């Protein structure tokens, strides 16, 4: 954990969804997370405003853990997810 934000220091996969409209970021998250074992951490970098609500909602529907949000180096929002199932 990277202390201040409570978010992991690194992700097993960071999806670059910059410039992609909704629902593409969630579609890509849904396709890729199955490649990883439970416990893996995925980050979705997206400037689409709906991702802020839809990544947590996807986690709830899929029974995965939503860890929170920070920003990538260029200031674009990044959403963190842990595969639990």
């Amino acid at each position, binding site marked *: 954990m990277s202390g201040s934000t409570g978010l992991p220091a690194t992700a097993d996969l960071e999806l670059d969804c910059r410039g992609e409209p*909704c*629902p593409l970021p*969630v579609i890509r998250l849904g396709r890729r997370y199955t490649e990883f074992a439970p416990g893996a951490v995925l980050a979705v970098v997206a400037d689409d*405003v*709906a991702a802020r609500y*839809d990544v947590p*909602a996807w986690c709830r529907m899929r029974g995965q853990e939503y860890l929170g949000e920070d920003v990538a180096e260029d200031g674009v929002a990044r959403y963190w997810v842990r595969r639990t199932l």
Partner: protein
Amino acid sequence: MRSSQDVRPGPIGPTGPSDLDAAASTALHPAARETLLAALDHGWADPRRLHKQARDARLLLDNAREVVAAELGLRRDDVTFTSSGTDAVHRGLLGLRLARSRVGRHALASAVEHSAVLHALEWAAATDGGSHDLVAVDRHARVDPDAVREALSPTTAVVAVQAANHEVGTLQPVTAVAEAIGDVPLFVDACAAVGHVDLPAGWAAAAASAHKWGGPAGVGLLLLRPGTRWRSPFPADDRVDPRSSGFENVPAALAAAAALRAVGTERAEVAARQRRLIDRVRGVAAGIEDVDVVGDPDERLPHLVTFSCLYLDGEALVTALDRRGFGVASGSACTASTLEPSHVLAAMGALTHGNVRLSLHRDTDEETVEAFCRALPEVVAELRR
């Protein structure tokens, strides 16, 4: 030949598409049409004047107030006709707030209020330096009365909580909120509710909109409890009712009253049928893989259902359903003029993409709903392919 100046609408086809967007606006009730046509010839004069035609118009206006008051269990003086539901929201909410400006200029609203409420509070804050806070809701979009009480500040002038949510249909615990906030006046936006469910008790001011229950557009209701402290937030006008402004649309007000009375008479039967049909749609939608039906399943408006389809684009869904003859609304960002997702769906933690809101008119029949129930799984499957 129809000339380009002809303002009459063209003919309506015999098998027109099925509008399932009644919560946006519903057609004029036959009782309202009849009343409107009769009143157009008798209610055009200035109801403030003393001559014969004016007295006729005044009688019709008073009659309209009387009928609305009786339907809602109020007194005639509690009812003001406004130029729209939005205008009624603005006057009700901002008028309560202004009357309490000595207490403060802070307002509270649930996070799922209609944008008319939120815009009014933003406008007021920008105008006189006040502020407002939003109270979070649960996953059904219901506000917790205790959370509202805890969010009160000594400077809170007014609290706004809707009667029913306009996007997901959830009924709010209005009476419990009123009890929880004690002496602070409660404004209730009842635009989505009036004509469909009982007006809940506990408000100091409330607003409703006639074109949502089968009256004409351009008629709103501002309701004020007797003894409520209220000041007009807008310039005064010397009309019949000092709470409103602009020349009264007497025929439309009377038609709105006639529609409200008619839907009141029919309501038990219509609401029971709508509840059954909506339960059917909820069941079909919930049975499709990765479709999230949102809003309270029981404590809700009878005629409305909202669901979100994972991985689908709301605009594509609306377009595909329209192609099959079904007109529906969506709270997804791609369908909004602002390109922002619905703040209601966001506040309740629902999926904002792939969203559909379906709402039934008083005469939407089982056949239409069954046709929608057959089309929906096909449309979702096609778009996901």
